[in-house]
């Protein structure tokens, strides 16, 4: 019954979306207020219907209803509760339901909180949002129905990939989807602007909060994925340039460019056409990612099971949505006239430079990801494009931008001088050189890139702090005055500083974890000692045990430094009952200096000896902290009163009430 209810809710949602996609749009064209007003209730209802469908799917998972095909393929009665829930979206059909849930969530949010939007614009935005939803409902109902039934039901399910039975991974897809599905809102705003033939400062101000929210979630989602890979996959790697990772990274690059570009539109009434194009491109990259993951055109560790019918459908969806929007852009784009003028050396110039680098980087990643397919389609044979290519190409592109990021915030709008900014950054520059020098003496034989990255991180980090200090006139005015300035700074400024500073911290982490990891692989008997990265690991022995749905071997390591015990690490190797698949749970101890990381492997001989892999990974936690700081900065910006366009209205109403 529940499955049928969910299925029916989905069908109703489709019809609601069709209504939402057509009536308000026509109403906006004709100036019919009643038709325009249809947008709000349909958006909210559509969302509620999808919530119902999602709740139904969750229910069949929680009750282990094995008459539903999706539950059979992805669940098992032995699975812990959390993973029964996360199993809902850990598969193709369920994840599509999550897609439309978030799509309709953003639509409903604009319907409810977008009070200050002009009605016609809001109607168009919600209509476009609904059009995308229609595509996805059709996709689900025609090719990927999560509620498909099977009779007779089997005794139990086929379990879930044990790699996915992990708290970090449970939250990774929702976070990621909130991100790159959230960019659909910027897309809808862009299309609405093209239909209206107008982009103004108000449009930019309305687009920003939605784009910023999506960006925060996507940053967090990518960070979560990397963090999960690091502690779960067993050798301390955190980024592989896998096609599906790239599929989430490209919208991030484009989305970051969009955030910066929208600022210019808002403040200086220029770069309109480009910003609208960026909004289209960002979401298009999200859609492209969906295609790549589910169509089977690329090999990836992340890929869902593929089916040609699905691939064809998504491609058709892509052509309609992306092709349609780009055609609209080609036709109506020239109508968007800009008035603001600026010099190359100015804040706008710096933001435009950011855009240039980010889009070049995104294009390079896209090229590398798609190249095997492109070459094969031309009959040029099979070729692999792996991390060596991406690292060789991506890093040099980003270096000039990171260097420029310290200077950019110092520049004034319209026309500025770069020399005063550089002079103020003397301290940051000196510190960067010192940091580079220290890194060189410590890791003379390591990759040069590590040293450069660390120096850049110090430059950027201190540069961001210097800019903040300059703004509050630190050391130029009494300290109390500076402090009061600090607290009166608009939150969006704080957001920028934290965003840039967070990136610097993350880059420092990447330098350590990417360039200077120390690894030691050996067979250890209980009592054996190994020195790794200045620490001493002693193997205390291993014992067997059982978990809820797996059996395990647990190894213990006592780690000391300079004679003092630092920690006792426990590493596990699990074998899951249903799939017989092994996974490693590394024993990790995190410090600011780096991570101690121990992995226990297969037994060797009969004397209690095991294969062990021991690592010291410098500065890893800085990556996670840096990403958190970035997300926090973005969230802080979101709470800036200037971004909550509804706020002035409320204050005026409050003031009026106070006077009455």
């Amino acid at each position: 019954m529940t499955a049928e209810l969910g299925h029916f809710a989905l069908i109703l949602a489709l019809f609601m979306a069709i209504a939402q996609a057509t009536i308000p749009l026509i109403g906006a064209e004709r100036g019919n207020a009643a038709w325009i007003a249809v947008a709000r209730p349909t958006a909210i209802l559509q969302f509620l219907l999808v919530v119902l469908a999602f709740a139904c799917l969750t229910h069949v998972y929680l009750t282990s209803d094995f008459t539903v095909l999706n539950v059979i393929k992805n669940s098992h009665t032995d699975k812990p509760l959390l993973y029964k829930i996360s199993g809902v979206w850990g598969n193709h059909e369920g994840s599509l339901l999550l897609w439309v849930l978030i799509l309709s969530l953003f639509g409903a949010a604009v319907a409810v909180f977008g009070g200050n939007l002009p009605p016609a614009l809001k109607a168009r935005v919600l209509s476009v949002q609904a059009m995308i939803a229609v595509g996805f409902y059709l996709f689900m109902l025609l090719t990927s129905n999560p509620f498909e039934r099977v009779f007779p039901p089997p005794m139990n399910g086929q379990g879930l990939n044990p790699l996915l039975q992990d708290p970090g991974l449970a939250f990774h897809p929702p976070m990621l989807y909130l991100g790159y599905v959230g960019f659909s809102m910027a897309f809808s705003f862009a299309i609405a602007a093209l239909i209206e033939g107008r982009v103004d400062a108000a449009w930019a101000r309305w687009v920003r909060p939605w784009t910023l929210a999506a960006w925060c979630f996507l940053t967090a989602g990518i960070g979560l994925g990397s963090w999960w890979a690091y502690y779960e996959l067993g050798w301390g790697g955190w980024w592989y340039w896998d096609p599906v990772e790239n599929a989430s990274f490209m919208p991030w690059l484009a989305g970051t460019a969009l955030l910066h570009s929208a600022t210019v539109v808002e403040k200086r009434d220029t770069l309109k056409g480009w910003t609208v194009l960026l909004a289209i491109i960002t979401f298009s990259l999200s859609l492209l990612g969906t295609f790549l993951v589910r169509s089977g055109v690329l090999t990836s560790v992340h890929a869902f099971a593929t089916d040609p019918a699905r691939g064809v459908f998504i491609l058709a969806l892509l052509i309609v949505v992306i092709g349609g929007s780009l055609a609209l852009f080609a036709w109506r784009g020239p109508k968007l006239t800009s008035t603001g003028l600026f010099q190359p050396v100015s804040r706008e110039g710096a933001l435009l430079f950011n855009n240039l680098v980010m889009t070049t980087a995104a294009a390079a990643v896209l090229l590398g990801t798609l190249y095997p397919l492109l070459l094969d389609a031309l009959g040029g044979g099979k070729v692999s494009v792996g991390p060596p290519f991406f690292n060789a190409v991506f890093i040099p592109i980003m270096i000039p931008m990171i260097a420029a990021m310290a200077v950019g915030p110092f520049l004034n709008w319209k026309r500025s001088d770069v020399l005063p900014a550089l002079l103020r950054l003397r301290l940051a520059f000196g510190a960067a050189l010192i940091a580079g020098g220290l890194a060189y003496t410590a890791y003379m034989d390591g990759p040069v890139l590590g040293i450069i990255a660390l120096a850049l991180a110090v430059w950027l980090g201190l540069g961001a702090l210097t800019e903040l200090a300059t703004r509050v006139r630190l050391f130029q005015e009494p300290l109390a005055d500076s402090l009061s300035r600090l607290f009166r700074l608009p939150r969006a400024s704080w957001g920028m500083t934290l965003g840039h500073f967070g990136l610097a911290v993350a880059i420092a982490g990447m330098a350590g974890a990417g360039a200077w990891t120390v690894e030691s692989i050996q067979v250890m008997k209980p009592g054996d000692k190994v020195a790794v990265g200045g620490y001493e690991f002693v193997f205390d022995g291993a014992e067997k045990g059982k978990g809820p749905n797996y059996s395990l071997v647990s190894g213990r390591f006592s780690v000391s430094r300079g004679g003092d015990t630092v920690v006792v690490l426990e590493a596990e190797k699990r074998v899951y009952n249903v799939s017989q698949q092994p996974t490693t749970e590394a024993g990790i101890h995190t410090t600011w200096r780096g991570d101690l990381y121990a992995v226990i492997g297969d037994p060797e001989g009969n004397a209690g000896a095991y294969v062990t892999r021991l690592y010291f990974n410098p500065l890893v936690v800085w990556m996670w902290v840096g990403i958190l700081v970035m997300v926090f900065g973005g969230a802080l910006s979101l709470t800036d009163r200037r971004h909550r366009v509804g706020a002035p209205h409320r204050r005026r109403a409050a003031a009026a009430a106070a006077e009455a």
Partner: protein
Amino acid sequence: MNNRVLFVMPLVVFLVLAGYFAVGLTLDPKKLPNMLAGKPVPDFALKPIKGRDDKGFASADLKKSVSLVNIFGSWCVACQVEHPFLMELKATSDVPIHGIDWREVDPDAGPAWLKKKGDPYALVGDDPRSRAAIAFGVTGAPETFLVDAEGVVRYKVVGPINKALWDDTLKPLIDKLRQGGAS
């Protein structure tokens, strides 16, 4: 005018990409080309497996007549699908089928499997460390190579051989090779 071109470019680029994607949907990214096509069989000399009376299987054995080299393993599910057809070939055709027993962890596993399911092979070589398989550029089992009488690889089948493949492709090719070259 120049402006217009700029605005149309993104659409054009996308449509070109979409064209590639459409073609891509018909391709299999994991299907590797046959690097050995038209080249002599790589040199190898494999020891025999237990329970058979041959002396093993070496590349020199392939320079006598048109033959098939079949890579299999007792762990391989698709090989079980293919096996009945290989037995049928042994009965109905005079093309020798040689086997390479790939990556058997337990030296008794391969022989036991053949004893249970039947042995269609003329010669079998044991390849526990994938040396021969790698030399052939094998990425999975079963894979079968058609080798002519001079020891040149002529065709590669990835996956199980079935009757349709035999009738449409392999048999005609074998006949052609036998007529064309020395037998």
